């Protein structure tokens, strides 16, 4: 047996990646040469075989050992050239390529399979393909070049007189020795320090496309030659500026990539070949490294300065280039999940030339260079004779069209750079893309009649006088009546001096009078200004001061704000006297709506008739509105959505149904109104639509169409809507400054878009995405959203400066304006616009918009802290504070709860002595401590198992000092590789393997020791999916607590709560029997409860039994309590953790398989909203397996079981009817949740319990079993169990 050596650091990362993704063939690197000419097959065969003999890495054999994977050279594995004759095939070249493709697509198991193959395909007379394929563990790109050159050298020596054989490859042992020496060298420590300093203060690294940078099985490739003129200009530029052209290319490509991330800094990956001065200089082996290169270009700096800076940075990085990026990732805490060390890869390969074979013409085709995690930009060629741009991209993240576009766009970017003084001079978009952005995507010209809203309304009123126009609270007006009443009031207003451009304020609640007033103002030639009487008087006073209305139509003047301008309905003329009403022109103001300003002062947006007419006539035609339509008016008039609600029906002869005041907030009342009034069309803000869909009354509604606007429409809400309501759904977008809406997207039942776009521009409207310098951006690049066209508001009333700031001259269309929305957006490849968010500081947590500044201000106002910073971490708010003497966390929490909505109160508050700052004095966010959502602790290991495990942890993780029983393997620095080693140690020590899943679930000494002990007591392998697991072991004289699984069927999530119980008692988890393959669930919840009860009685044949269950587990717990009671057992605690009776869910549509799969994401601890791309079972399972969640590490069959259990349990719940339990139910409500369903309370259990004990805890439903909630819930459970035992025993 030859000596086995550990993997080199360079191999270790690949080893781990391949082992985690064993079916992935992307680790095969390869190339083929297209050979034309009289190949001497014999000489060639012996050249290939001899070079392969010399290249020891090709014959590597791998083994797994307790101390980690090892390798040795097994000469028996050396590849021999195979010759395959394809000449007889119909298309020999195609046949050979297919064989090459097939080989490359075959995954290699490095523990079993040969790593390399050499195949010569005969295609015909003097035509061959020679394919080489080598697993990445055995070579890198340079190694492949070495091998190919060596074969060429040997072939030449055999076939050309006077050519020498040259030197053989050096030994692989030298590479191993060098790696081993570096590992323990002071250089490595110095390199580590250098990199940690170089990476300090790095923000989360993004890339050019959203998604997980995990290599797929294949990649997309497109390559094109760089234009000759550009290549020459590049060489001249480099020479003139004293730079190397590869450095210039790297710098410019970095600048190009940054345009797509939109962040000030990006981090590129730059391959480092690692051969210089190395034992590997002449050895085919895996040596190369990828160095992260931080690039934060100053776009205004001279171009050469920027390139020189990048060249310097690259040179510095190369000096520390032996330090592995995998290790650096570990140092920086970037392992696992979505965290990246770098985004795009930029690889300049000046030595990439086709090998020269004596007497033959050859061209090189690279078939694979290893994993493509994101996107690789490769420049091939020596620049003297030619240069090409080659883009390889992960097909999960980029389409082929996008890859082609990058090649073309980057080429143009480089060409333009050679003519630019600064980066800022270089646009991102190609001329064709600019043209599309400005014109093709905005080809919305549509003839618009030269009319006014007033004319449209009077036209409709006279066209069909007898038809019903308006309904409110059982009363109704015909068009003729509406005509008379509005004309009469218009006369009154004219009498008050109202004329063109006069502003008339309207402060009326929803009523017939309100609609009459709006029309009357328009007929009098004025512009109406809605006021909300619910607003604070100070705000109304400010608007009055700003707008100075000619008249105020209101029922009264409670705050004395209107003075002599007040006109109450008593003052209105009821019948017209026939006074002439003025002609209104399209450019007159129609309405003024005030919106909140970021500074706190409201600003009045003045919209003309022409603008709103365009909006109304577009909607009318686009959605085919007609006299049959009955449109609901429910939006307060102060929101501009109300404008189309008020007028769309009335200009078309339909019926306007005005909702009673307050109805817009009451889903039940709305549903009734829609049914009773036969509403065909209405509007919802998405959050209200969500509440409406949750209301039982909305089930089965049918209407023509529902419009959403005002917030992002989540894709899952769209889907939920269509499952519940039969109607078209349309997503509209627009600010008050552009006449209500400027874009539309049909979010119909077939729409799969996620996110849901805001879509396409309406008539005569442009949506333009521009960069910081107001140049059009290409699809995929985030830009500032500007609006142009006929719908733009005139501006802000009395604020010319603000108007000029926000409504700029359109740089692309002479004489037109653009409105700067302040929103960020990007286009999909098809041009549909996607809203991305605000350009300012705002986060969203579970869809709720939060200004972090607002939370910080609220904390500051308590006076309990000196300073505060609030961040979002993993969908939770974390406040870092510097406390005053008076500070206590409880006091701060209480004060915040008084000021902020609950969702804005931070989940964790971290008191610090000082904020960490970066070298230039800014807050160093990376250096802030990880938030603690619950306290940690733990004593010294006590049992032999714990002590042994602690010793393993210490050795494997190189921990100095004592290890406590609550110390977490991964928190101490463990990674998946060391985890495998730990498991091997455990297997050696105890002869049992608890499995990776168990380690992920129990990374602490105490938990893992229990697993190991359980195995030693006769468990069989990984039993964490068995029907009964022991979560904690406690004092044997205390009755056990049985916890019942939630929907996923597993009880792992209860471990924290179970271990928080004090005093400890034995806690069992009852898991779904259907987790086992081939086991079906019983037919009903009651049958399931019987099964569980039998298991409980088995374990606890006498004495009281305590039960607890979260969510679905609570429903089952109640059913078990019924069974136990019937069996004559004493039932102690029955704790329902935020569980509600089955009937609450009966009306809900059954989740589809897709939804159940998405629920799995939540069970695994992911936010399903964050992964809209995962739709199919295979996608979800692949994603879970790739991640670090315990669920993802389950054996495949067990994961299948979870999917089945989620689906089946949901079905059973809907068919379950509770029987009463005579005892007491302890209900623990997640008080921060259920804003959408306030009906979910403990009282729902009253019919099914002797008594109810109610507890509220300030958490959300999913948080209840977490560490923070456990600290509150566990004591409450213990207290009750103690009490019940005293009473019961």
């Amino acid at each position, binding site marked *: 047996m030859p000596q086995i050596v550990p993997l080199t650091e360079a191999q270790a990362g690949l080893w781990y990646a391949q082992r985690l993704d064993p079916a992935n063939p992307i680790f095969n690197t390869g190339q083929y040469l297209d050979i034309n000419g009289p190949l001497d097959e014999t000489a060639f065969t012996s050249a290939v075989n001899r070079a392969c003999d010399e290249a020891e890495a090709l014959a590597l054999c791998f083994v797994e050992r307790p101390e980690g994977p090892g390798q040795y050279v097994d000469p028996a594995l050396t590849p021999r050239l195979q010759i395959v004759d394809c000449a007889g095939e119909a298309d020999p070249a195609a046949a050979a390529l297919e064989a090459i493709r097939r080989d490359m697509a075959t995954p290699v198991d490095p523990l079993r399979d040969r790593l390399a193959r050499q195949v010569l395909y005969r295609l015909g007379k003097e035509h061959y393909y020679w394919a080489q394929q080598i697993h990445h563990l055995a070579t890198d790109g340079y190694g492949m070049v*070495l091998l190919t*050159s060596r074969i060429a050298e040997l072939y030449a020596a055999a076939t050309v007189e006077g050519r020498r054989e040259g030197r053989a490859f*050096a030994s692989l042992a030298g590479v191993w020795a060098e790696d081993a020496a570096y590992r323990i060298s002071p250089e490595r420590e110095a390199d580590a320090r250098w990199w940690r300093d170089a990476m300090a203060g790095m923000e989360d690294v993004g890339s050019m496309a959203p998604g997980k940078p995990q290599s797929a099985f294949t990649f997309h490739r497109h390559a094109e030659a760089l234009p000759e003129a550009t290549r020459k200009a590049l060489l001249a530029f480099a020479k003139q500026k*004293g730079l*190397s052209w*590869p*450095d210039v290319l790297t710098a410019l490509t970095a600048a190009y990539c940054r345009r797509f991330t939109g962040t000030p800094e990006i981090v590129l990956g730059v391959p*480092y*070949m690692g*051969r*210089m*001065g*190395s034992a590997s*200089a*002449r050895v085919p082996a895996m040596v190369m490294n990828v160095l992260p290169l931080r690039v934060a270009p100053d776009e205004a700096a001279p171009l050469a300065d920027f390139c020189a800076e990048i060249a310097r940075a690259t*040179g510095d990085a*190369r000096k520390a280039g032996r330090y592995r990026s995998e290790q650096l990732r570990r140092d920086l805490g970037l392992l696992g999940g979505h965290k990246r060390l770098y985004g795009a890869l930029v690889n*300049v390969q*000046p*030595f990439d030339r086709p090998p020269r074979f004596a007497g033959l013409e050859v061209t090189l085709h690279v078939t694979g260079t290893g994993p493509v995690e994101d996107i690789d930009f490769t420049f091939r060629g*020596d620049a*003297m004779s030619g240069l090409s741009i080659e883009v390889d991209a992960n097909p999960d993240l980029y389409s082929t069209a996008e890859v082609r576009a990058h090649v073309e766009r980057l080429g143009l970017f480089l060409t333009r750079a050679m003519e630019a003084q600064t980066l800022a001079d270089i646009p991102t978009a190609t001329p064709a893309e600019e043209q599309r952005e400005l014109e093709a995507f905005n080809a919305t010209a549509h003839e618009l009649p030269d009319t006014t809203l007033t004319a449209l309304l009077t036209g409709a009123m006279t066209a069909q006088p007898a038809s019903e126009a308006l309904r409110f609270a059982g009363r109704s007006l015909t068009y003729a009546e509406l005509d008379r009443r509005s004309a009469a009031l218009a006369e009154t207003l004219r009498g008050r001096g109202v004329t063109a451009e006069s502003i008339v304020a309207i402060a009326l609640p929803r009523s017939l009078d309100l609609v009459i007033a709006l029309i009357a103002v328009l007929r009098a030639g004025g512009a109406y200004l809605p006021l909300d009487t619910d607003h604070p008087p100070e705000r109304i006073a400010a608007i009055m001061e700003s707008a100075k209305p000619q008249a105020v139509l209101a029922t009264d003047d409670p705050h004395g704000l209107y003075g002599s301008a007040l006109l109450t309905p008593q003052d209105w003329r009821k019948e017209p006297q026939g006074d002439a009403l003025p002609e209104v022109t399209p450019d007159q103001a129609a309405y003024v709506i005030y919106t909140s300003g970021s500074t706190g002062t409201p600003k009045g947006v003045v919209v003309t008739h022409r603008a709103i007419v365009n909006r109304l006539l577009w909607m009318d035609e686009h959605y085919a509105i007609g006299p049959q339509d009955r449109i609901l008016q429910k939006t307060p008039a102060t929101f501009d959505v109300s404008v189309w609600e008020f007028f769309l029906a009335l200009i078309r002869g339909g019926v306007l149904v005005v909702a009673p005041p307050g109805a817009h907030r009451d889903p039940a009342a709305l549903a009734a109104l829609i049914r009773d009034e036969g509403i065909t069309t209405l509007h919802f803000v998405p959050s209200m639509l969500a509440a409406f869909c949750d209301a039982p009354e909305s089930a089965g509604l049918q209407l023509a169409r529902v419009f959403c606007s005002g917030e992002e429409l989540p894709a899952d809400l769209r889907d939920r809507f269509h499952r519940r309501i039969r109607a078209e759904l349309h997503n509209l977008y627009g600010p008050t400054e552009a006449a209500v809406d400027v874009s539309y997207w049909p979010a119909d039942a077939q729409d799969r878009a996620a996110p849901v776009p805001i879509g396409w521009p309406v008539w005569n409207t442009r949506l333009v995405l521009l960069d910081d310098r107001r140049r059009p951006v290409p699809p995929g690049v985030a830009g500032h959203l500007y609006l142009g066209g006929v719908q733009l508001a005139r501006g802000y009333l009395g604020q010319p400066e603000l108007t000029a700031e926000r409504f700029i001259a359109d740089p692309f269309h002479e004489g037109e304006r653009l409105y700067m929305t302040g929103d960020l957006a990007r286009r999909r490849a098809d041009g549909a616009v996607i809203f991305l968010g605000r350009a300012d500081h705002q986060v969203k947590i579970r869809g709720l918009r939060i200004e972090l500044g607002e939370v910080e201000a609220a904390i500051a106002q308590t006076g309990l802290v000196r300073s505060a910073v609030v961040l979002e971490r993993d969908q939770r708010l974390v406040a870092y504070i510097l406390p005053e003497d008076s500070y206590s966390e409880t006091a701060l929490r209480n004060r915040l709860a008084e000021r902020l909505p609950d969702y804005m109160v931070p989940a964790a508050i971290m008191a610090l002595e000082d904020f960490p700052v970066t070298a230039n004095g800014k807050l160093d966010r990376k250096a802030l401590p990880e938030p603690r959502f619950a306290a940690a602790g733990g004593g010294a290991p006590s049992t032999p198992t714990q002590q042994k495990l602690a010793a393993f942890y210490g050795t494997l993780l190189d921990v100095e000092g004592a290890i406590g029983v609550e110390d977490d393997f991964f928190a101490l620095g463990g990674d998946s590789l060391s985890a495998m080693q730990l498991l091997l140690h455990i297997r050696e020590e105890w002869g049992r393997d608890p499995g990776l899943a168990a380690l992920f679930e129990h990374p602490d000494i105490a938990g893992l020791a229990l697993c190991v002990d359980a195995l030693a007591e006769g468990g069989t392998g990984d039993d964490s999916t068995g029907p009964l697991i022991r979560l904690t072991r406690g004092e044997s004289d205390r009755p056990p607590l049985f916890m019942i699984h939630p929907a996923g069927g597993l009880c792992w999530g209860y471990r924290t709560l179970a271990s928080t119980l004090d005093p400890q008692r034995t806690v069992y988890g009852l898991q779904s029997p259907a987790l086992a393959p081939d086991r079906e669930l019983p037919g009903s919840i009651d049958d399931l409860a019987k099964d569980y009860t039998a298991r409980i009685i088995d374990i606890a044949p006498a004495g009281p039994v305590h039960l607890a269950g979260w969510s679905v587990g609570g429903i089952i717990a109640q059913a078990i309590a019924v069974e136990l009671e019937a069996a004559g057992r004493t039932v102690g605690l029955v704790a329902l953790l935020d569980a509600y009776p089955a009937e609450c869910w009966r009306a809900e549509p059954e989740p589809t398989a897709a939804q159940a799969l998405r629920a799995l994401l939540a069970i695994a601890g992911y936010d399903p909203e964050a992964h809209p791309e995962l739709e199919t079972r295979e996608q979800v399972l692949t994603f879970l397996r790739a991640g670090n969640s315990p669920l993802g590490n389950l054996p495949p069959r067990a994961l299948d079981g979870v999917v089945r259990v989620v689906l089946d349990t949901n079905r059973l719940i809907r068919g379950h009817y509770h029987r009463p339990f005579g005892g007491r139910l302890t209900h623990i409500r997640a008080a921060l949740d259920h804003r959408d369903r306030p009906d979910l309370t403990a009282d729902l259990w009253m019919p099914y319990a002797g008594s109810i004990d109610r507890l509220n805890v300030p958490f959300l439903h999913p948080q209840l079993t977490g560490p923070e909630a456990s600290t509150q819930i566990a004591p409450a459970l213990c207290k009750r169990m103690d009490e019940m035992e005293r009473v019961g025993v």
Partner: protein
Amino acid sequence: MTTEPFTREKLRQDIAAMLEIDADALGDDDNLMDMGLDSMRAMNLVMQWDEEGVPVDFGDLAENMTLASLWSVVQERQG
């Protein structure tokens, strides 16, 4: 291919030029990496020599980190 003979001094000048230092500053036994020779510069040198017919490839340069040892390789090849 040029016919001009390749000398130790020409080797020194080429490397020094690539490192942007005076040829005098480059001693026979100085470590070329310490003097600033990285893979990109090495590659450029190798390409330049290749055009001139100098029998030194990248592996030679990567393996021989002093002028003296590199020169011995050249001699051996030319011999």
